[in-house]
């Protein structure tokens, strides 16, 4: 079923990393039970997009293991709604490298939307967290049936 959906379309354009040609976003983490903590990725999307994935790095710091979720939200400042979340977990400093998660089911984001990201995690110490977050999108207008 998963492959059927994803492979029913082809992309005549390509994928776009937001923010475009700029450094990734590093929000200040909040606890799993916390609220807020959103950092803007883009103030207004130029087209209707499919949210297809997230990429990040891990900061160097404490060697204490940690589990985090990176959330992608859509909406104005203070009223963001989570539309996707990915999990990342590490144990040692040797894990401080890049990673990505490509979604099986992309999420449609209307043109003119504000996109933000935040980090939720199981420890409060701000030492080694996900950082340099970017989101991957494609234009829905460039998706055509196979």
């Amino acid at each position, binding site marked *: 079923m998963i*492959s*059927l959906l*994803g*492979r*029913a*379309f*082809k*992309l*005549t*354009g*390509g*994928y*776009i*990393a937001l923010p475009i*040609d*700029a*450094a*990734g976003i590093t929000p200040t983490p909040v606890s799993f039970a916390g609220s807020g903590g959103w950092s803007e990725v883009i103030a207004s999307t130029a087209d209707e997009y*499919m949210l*297809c*994935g997230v*990429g*990040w*790095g*891990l*900061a*160097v710091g404490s060697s204490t293991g940690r589990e985090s979720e990176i959330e992608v939200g859509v909406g104005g400042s203070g009223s963001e709604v989570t539309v996707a979340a990915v999990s990342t977990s590490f144990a040692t*400093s*040797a*894990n*401080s*490298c*890049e*990673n*990505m998660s*490509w*979604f*099986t*089911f*992309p999420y449609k984001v209307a043109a003119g939307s504000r996109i933000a990201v935040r980090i939720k995690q199981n420890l409060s110490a701000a030492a080694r967290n996900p*950082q*340099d977050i*970017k989101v*991957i999108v*494609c234009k829905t207008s460039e*998706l055509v049936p*196979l």
Partner: protein
Amino acid sequence: MRTIVGEYCLPDKAAGIAPSVPTNSSYGNPTWVELVASTPEDLLVVGVQFRGNGGSVLGQNVLCLATGGSGSETQISVLSIGSNQTNGSMYERNYTFPFGIFVAAGTRLSIAYRASSTSANLNRPTNVKLQVVSVASILPS
């Protein structure tokens, strides 16, 4: 959907491609390196594979795909994004895209980085290969 031939890699049965050292530290001016001179058939690029180069300079990178002849490449897609903060920390990656990127037969494909550093030793992906599938081999079920 299914394929009657199966997915394969580009370059096909050959080593992956090492992109050039970035020449701009603000994610601009990518230096394209040919991945394949001419695609053998209409393809969908459905994934990418690479490993880390073991570099000691830390920073962010965006691996990009372009079409077009040498000197006139046009970026068509981002393939991966990342940030490395520990020397040589990066290892093998294999990503599958939700939608295959259509590339017509006879197309020259190139790859390049957009990065936060111009260091030759930037810790970044290398030995890049694409996972592709023949459009003609795809059947409804």
